[in-house]
């Protein structure tokens, strides 16, 4: 940290929060607020004279409230920058610190929050994790029994710079415990709280056990675990060393910790799976290896930076295998446990990776993006004519569209990822996506349904999952009927409901719309935009007299070639059970209603060449 603070190209803004982020890769504009310290940073030399005289003692959050701190203090001894700050919630304004500070005159009670605006090229999110609060698991007694502590509290107790100068004592009586029980997976691998494995708790439990064993040879340590997970380099050897050093490992998740009120000792009940028996272990101190959980304000930061979050609540990477460091928003990178529970080596590796990913952008004058971006026709956008709309902005997963009444919607091209959701959502056909224009896609529909359309299944597939799934079906040689015809779109959100209607007007037998599973969507929430639309379309089709089974929506991942083949086979079988005349009849009856829905397209001069073979709306209506 000290090296970073001294580096000419690094500025550390501590005590500062992100308020608002605008802009796009290479051109972010970030509003920050530096909270008042009530100490002038340039004048404070970190001597600590103010702390010595401060009469107020409050719990120290850095020491997890085990030790006190003063109302004017630094967060911890190694803090960088070393600038003291006053906790105004507790300061009684006795001004003893002002006197102690003397000629430096660094204390300023009139300090106000300072707003700051920075032009930033790239952003790395490394906000870390929070620790699960075990009080919600009553059976482990945390908060009820003083001698049940968390692993984080143990870290402070066993730390030579901690409140006990590295001497292990137990909270109830300050005595050095002769026995310790460690319980793993507290709040993790537990569907009631967090389903995921926190990953690094096995290693820190073993580390703490070995450390304490080295400090106190006679200490009796028992680790209760479900599975010990030591997959990284050298970890398994470390675990073996712990076993050899006499640390007891019991495979079995404890169900109850109760206290002997006379001694303050704890009795841990668990089933030892190797014995097949329930055993009770009495320990003078119990340590809970609590789960690593997302920071409580992760949601807030995700909104500011348009980040996606995994079901577990950690920030989601762009692609789990191929782009594990990139956030879905270009120019934003993830590092460390903010992206998922991680130990120190993995966090350092990801931090370095994030820095070099960012440097890749910063070292260039221009940045190439995919050409498939969306573009607004300002003459067609009704917002330009002073009407309220904003449908496109609501559909955009990246916040790339700004709609101001009286002005046409603005798409920040560099922020657009080309999912096409806005194009399909726009009720006035004012947005087009390059390479996936309405004209191009309608021409495909027309061509694919030229010949015996009632025998065809028209499948709209998203580029990333379903199209790749169909590809997998092919490369894996899964056989399925040849009646399907595929149209590739970037995201199922681009599949306009009017495309489906057009397909039925052109006589299609069946229509399949497929996309990613909700959690796999490559455009954060694109799948949801599509899914909502298709749900509405279902009832529309019903009203038009098109059988429900002739329109199907399926979420097929890139690996699910088998599912793609199965869905097409099922649809083909359903289609074969129809009399082609019945399908033609249904489509014919629905045609006038469809034509009414598609009137705007029929009259659109850009699409004239596509619809010239169809009767005009007026003719159909007659």
């Amino acid at each position, binding site marked *: 940290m000290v090296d970073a603070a001294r580096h000419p190209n690094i500025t550390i803004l501590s005590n500062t929060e992100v308020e608002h982020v605008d802009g796009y890769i290479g051109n972010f504009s970030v509003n920050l607020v530096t909270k008042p310290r009530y100490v002038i940073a340039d004048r404070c030399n970190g001597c600590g004279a103010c702390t010595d005289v401060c009469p107020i003692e409050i719990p120290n959050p850095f020491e997890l409230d085990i030790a006190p701190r003063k109302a004017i203090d630094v967060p911890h001894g190694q803090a960088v920058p070393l600038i003291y700050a006053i906790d105004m919630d507790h300061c009684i304004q006795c001004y003893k610190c002002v006197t102690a500070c003397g000629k430096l005159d660094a204390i300023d009670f009139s300090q106000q929050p300072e707003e700051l605006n920075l032009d930033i090229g790239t952003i790395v999110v490394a906000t870390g994790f929070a620790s699960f609060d075990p009080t919600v698991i009553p*059976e482990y007694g945390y908060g*009820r029994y003083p001698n049940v502590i968390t692993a984080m509290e143990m870290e402070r107790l066993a730390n030579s710079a901690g409140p006990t100068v590295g001497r292990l004592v137990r909270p109830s009586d300050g005595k050095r415990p002769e026995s310790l029980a460690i319980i793993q997976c507290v709040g993790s691998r537990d569907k*009631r709280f967090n389903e995921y494995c926190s990953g690094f708790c096995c290693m820190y439990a073993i580390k703490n056990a070995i450390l304490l064993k080295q400090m106190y040879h006679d200490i009796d340590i028992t680790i209760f675990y479900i599975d010990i997970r030591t997959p990284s380099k050298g970890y398994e050897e470390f675990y073996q060393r712990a076993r050899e050093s006499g640390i007891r490992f019991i495979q*079995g*998740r404890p*169900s109850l910790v109760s206290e002997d*009120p006379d001694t303050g000792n704890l*009795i841990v009940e668990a089933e030892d799976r190797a014995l097949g028996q*329930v055993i009770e272990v009495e320990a003078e101190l119990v340590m809970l290896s609590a789960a690593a959980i997302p920071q409580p304000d992760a949601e807030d930061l995700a909104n500011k930076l348009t980040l996606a979050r995994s079901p577990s609540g950690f920030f989601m990477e762009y692609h789990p295998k191929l782009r594990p460091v990139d956030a879905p928003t270009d120019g934003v990178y993830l590092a460390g446990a903010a992206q998922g529970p991680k130990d120190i080596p993995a966090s350092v590796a990801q931090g370095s990776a994030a820095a070099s990913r960012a440097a890749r952008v910063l070292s260039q004058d221009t940045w190439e993006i995919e050409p498939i971006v969306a573009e607004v026709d300002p003459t067609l956008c009704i917002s330009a004519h002073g009407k309220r709309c904003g449908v496109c902005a609501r559909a955009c997963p990246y916040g790339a569209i700004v709609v101001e009444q009286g002005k046409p919607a603005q798409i920040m091209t560099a922020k657009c990822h080309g999912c096409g959701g806005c194009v399909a959502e726009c009720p006035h056909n004012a947005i087009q996506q390059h390479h996936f224009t309405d004209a191009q896609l309608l021409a495909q529909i027309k061509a694919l349904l030229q010949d015996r359309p009632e025998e065809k299944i028209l499948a709209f597939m998203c580029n990333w999952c379903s199209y790749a799934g169909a590809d997998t079906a092919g490369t894996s040689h899964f056989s399925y009927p040849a009646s399907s015809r595929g149209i590739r779109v970037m995201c199922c959100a681009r599949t306009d409901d009017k495309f489906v209607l057009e397909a039925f007007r052109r006589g299609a037998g069946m229509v399949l719309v497929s996309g990613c599973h909700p959690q796999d969507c490559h455009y954060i929430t694109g799948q949801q935009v599509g899914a909502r639309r298709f749900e509405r379309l279902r009832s529309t089709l019903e009203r038009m007299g098109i059988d429900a089974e002739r329109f199907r929506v399926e979420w097929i991942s890139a690996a699910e070639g088998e599912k793609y083949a199965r869905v097409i086979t099922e649809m083909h079988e359903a289609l074969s059970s129809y009399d082609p005349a019945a399908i033609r009849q249904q489509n014919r009856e629905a045609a006038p209603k469809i034509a009414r829905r598609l009137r705007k397209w029929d009259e659109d001069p850009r699409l004239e060449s596509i619809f010239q073979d169809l009767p005009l709306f007026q003719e159909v209506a007659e």
Partner: protein
Amino acid sequence: MAVQTKLDAHFAQEVMARPGGEHLLTCMACGTCASICLVRRFHPAFNPRRVLHQAALGMREAVLSSEEIWLCSACDACYPRCPQEIHISEVMGTLRDIAIGKGYEAPGPFPEVDRDVCSGCAACARVCPYEAIGPAPDEDDPSRQTAHVDKTRCLHCGLCVATCPSGAITLEEVNEQEVLTRVSAGGWLDQPGRLAGGPEPRCLAFVCQWSVRSDAAWARAERFGDQVRLVRLPCSGRVDPAVILWALGKGVDGVLVIGCDDDECHYQRGTFAGRSKVYLLQEMLATMGYQPERVRFSRQSIYERFGLERSIEDMLQTLGQLPAPVAEQAI
């Protein structure tokens, strides 16, 4: 146990297809259920984790023929603590259903109804937590109703035995005679308490067997010696007010009923029944002009390891402060 070589691949699917069995395969064998379960105190071989694992592996015969599936009393101590949210008692119920379908029978013991004495009042049906007993047309005389026991549902808590106003129901180990014998064993009732001019108050304690987690806690409660008589019952709801009054009449200074905490009852609402009986009895004593403090219900939370000892201490202290008239006046 011998190794079973034939594993039935469909058995787990069969269990999961039934309501309650859905999550069988998600068990990661952490043993939380096995260590929280108190059935093992009285049946050391019982292990829900192993039953689940056997079912998941497909050891059909071993599971269906085992006594274990009938021992779970559906107290659901394990379910809220299971990290995989497996409703183990429902899985057990499903296994029992399958076993019954295959012709296996529940081992019992079951309450026996003396049909000549039963009046068909249905009090037992109202108190039974499992809908396992209720009136039905009598076999010999279909014109009258008598209580019938559904052996596939009964988990032998004994609530019906204590509730029957006619004394028509008996259950092995917890019938009236057995309880009276346990109370008066060793001539305990003949020793003088404060009521009968003795030096120290004597207390009779009916203890729900599930409310005491460990032998250590039980041993601590035994240190009071002859001053306190501990009588183990399957459930505090099994306590009979008539027996309490009888004991008070015999010169016992007070009666303590120990049951589980509200949501920890082994028989769903047994502790509720026990508590209600004691409260009514207290009101009755007050109406009759006696001290209601002589009977007390004490709830034991699973989180208080030596709560039993403390409850008895409190009770003895209360009894020591009460006046000590002669026994005949007390009741």
